[in-house]
């Protein structure tokens, strides 16, 4: 105490100021929290929440079809148009949702055995190697990977070359919904592997031993112990795969066909046509879907595994 007081009185002014500051932080812990959280939280509020709020508000405006000027009068016209019969918008939303769901299920089925092997069976070196292999694609450009798939799936691409080599007929996968499903499943697979891996890795060996000790064989232990404890990881991974697919518009553009319109593509088109209010209204649809999905995921305990 006495030493500190001495330093306080006689030390250089910079040191004195720092001591005073650290003393202040020690007496008022909330100041430290405010200092750490303030800048990122402020930026987040202005940029992210602000932009979302403006988007939501503008979805209740319209565009004058003659002058292309935005009319700031409150109306539900945009939403009415989306849900109106005979319009393509519900069909587009349904396709987006279907592909997102298919990609999520596919990735869960592909990722689980891989994550299980990595977390519980592989040795240290094999595990590290698999980690690199799972993460490696994420270090290259998204566009490059999608174009690579375009080359694989195209009529004269690697897929048909391999099929012909095996004496099998050509497949016309390129520019179809199937192509989108394959490419999306490939793109988002790492986002499913990692949370499942984390969940499986956290299960202590003693749980599996206890299950065996109580008479359960492998399948039973898997169903009754491993799967329920890994489920939050699967749900956490599905949030990534589902939301990333739902918001994408580049993959449908590059590997999808003429009927492979996603919500994102439509939004993109309407913004290009300067109809921001309708684009905003249509962009609210995936937002609502994701909101509902997150609520369900929270119920399944997904956020404990993140």
């Amino acid at each position, binding site marked *: 105490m006495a030493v500190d007081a001495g330093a306080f009185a006689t030390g250089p002014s910079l040191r004195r100021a720092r001591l005073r500051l650290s003393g202040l932080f020690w007496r008022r812990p909330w100041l430290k929290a405010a200092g750490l959280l303030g800048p990122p939280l402020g930026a987040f509020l202005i940029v992210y929440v602000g932009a979302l709020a403006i988007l939501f508000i503008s979805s209740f405006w319209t565009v004058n079809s003659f002058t292309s000027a935005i009319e700031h009068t409150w109306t539900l016209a945009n939403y009415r148009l989306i849900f109106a019969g005979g319009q393509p918008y519900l069909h587009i939303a349904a396709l987006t949702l279907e592909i997102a769901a298919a990609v999520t299920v596919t990735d869960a089925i592909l990722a689980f055995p891989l994550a299980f092997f990595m977390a519980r069976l592989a040795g240290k070196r094999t595990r590290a190697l698999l980690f690199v292999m799972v993460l490696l694609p994420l270090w290259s450009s998204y566009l490059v990977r999608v174009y690579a798939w375009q080359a694989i799936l195209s009529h004269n691409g690697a897929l048909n070359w391999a099929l012909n080599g095996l004496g099998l007929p050509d497949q016309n996968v390129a520019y179809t919904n199937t192509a989108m499903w394959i490419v999306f499943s490939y793109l988002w697979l790492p986002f499913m592997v990692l949370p499942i891996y984390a969940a499986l890795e956290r299960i*202590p060996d*003693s*749980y599996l*031993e*206890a*299950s*065996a*000790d*109580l*008479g*359960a*064989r492998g399948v*039973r232990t898997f169903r*009754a*112990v491993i799967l*329920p*404890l890994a489920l939050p990881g699967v749900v956490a991974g599905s949030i990534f795969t589902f939301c990333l697919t739902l918001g994408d518009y580049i993959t449908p553009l590059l590997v999808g066909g003429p009927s492979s319109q996603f919500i994102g593509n439509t939004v993109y088109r309407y913004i290009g046509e300067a109809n921001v209010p309708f684009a905003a209204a249509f962009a609210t649809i995936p937002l609502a879907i994701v909101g509902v999905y997150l609520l369900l995921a929270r119920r399944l305990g997904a956020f404990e595994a993140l």
Partner: protein
Amino acid sequence: MRSGCGLKRPHRVAIIEHRMATLAPAASETEPVAGVPAVRLSGVRRTYGEVVAVANVDLEIAAGEFFTLLGPSGSGKTTTLRVIAGFERPDAGHVELQGVDVTHVAPAQRAVNTVFQDYALFPHMTVAENVEYGLRVKGMPKSERRSRAEEVLDRVRLPGLGDRKPVQLSGGQRQRVALARAIVNRPPVLLLDEPLGALDLKLRQEMQIFLKELQRELAITFVYVTHDQEEALTMSDRLAVFNAGGIEQTGTPADVYEHPQSEFVAGFVGVSNVLERGGRRVTIRPEKIRMTDESGGDGEAGTIREVVYVGMVTRYVVDLDGGGELVVVRQNLETSSQEALAEQGKRVRLSWRPEHTYEIEKEGT
């Protein structure tokens, strides 16, 4: 050696018979057979790469015995238990349960149940679901396993907690759920891996008494792993002292405590009081040594180097003029802490009756 602790008291017989009727293993193959050891290990060896965890362990545990594997950490006691459970496969040797060789039988098919050190309760299941797990695996109807689980939860003094999740329980309660989950299956042999290690002293002492009573009433074999010598002495019918992957000595608590066969056992079970006199190494238990004033009578002369007041007793470390040191324990019958601590540096004489000394092998011979 076959122990009959419970049978010594006539009033226990009725309780045992009652328990045998309600909780004894149902399948005939798991029924204890007279004369056949419940557990038998012969030549068991287990290595992890270069490290030898268990080297050539032979062990016979009689049916109905409370048998303790005692030793410091890394001595091989837990590995031995895991070999009996089937979680570790021995590199060499055989494991027999009720006379049947189970060396190559998976844990799920062995007639033993385990209480794990970390309890290993399934966190996503309720207490009742945890307890019923083994019965559900066997395909027992829901109503029957529900009543069996309730009965066992009563028995471990956790009535009405079946709907809780393990995280909502205290450490002591979780420990008893782990116990209930194992004994509900009525195994002929129960394996306990340092089950009280995580509990505080008072709870641990309560649970020691409770486990001992439970073992008598269920009349099943307990194989108990601990590093706590006091726990081993209090609870066991017999114990094996492990050191460096092997068994140093097997016997009843009194046997091991009073007749330690090696310096390690003398030191680990109790206080290491080893003296070398005339080429013989002998051990004397601290409470068997009489400490008198230097002038008073005969015995070895020495100086009190250290005094430790431990409440009920005072522990003295005495440097002997003839070489070596001995620990002496005296009850604080009339001594206060002030008086005891003032004795530091005092000259004393130590004497003991020759029948209280035991010759031991030299370390490393």
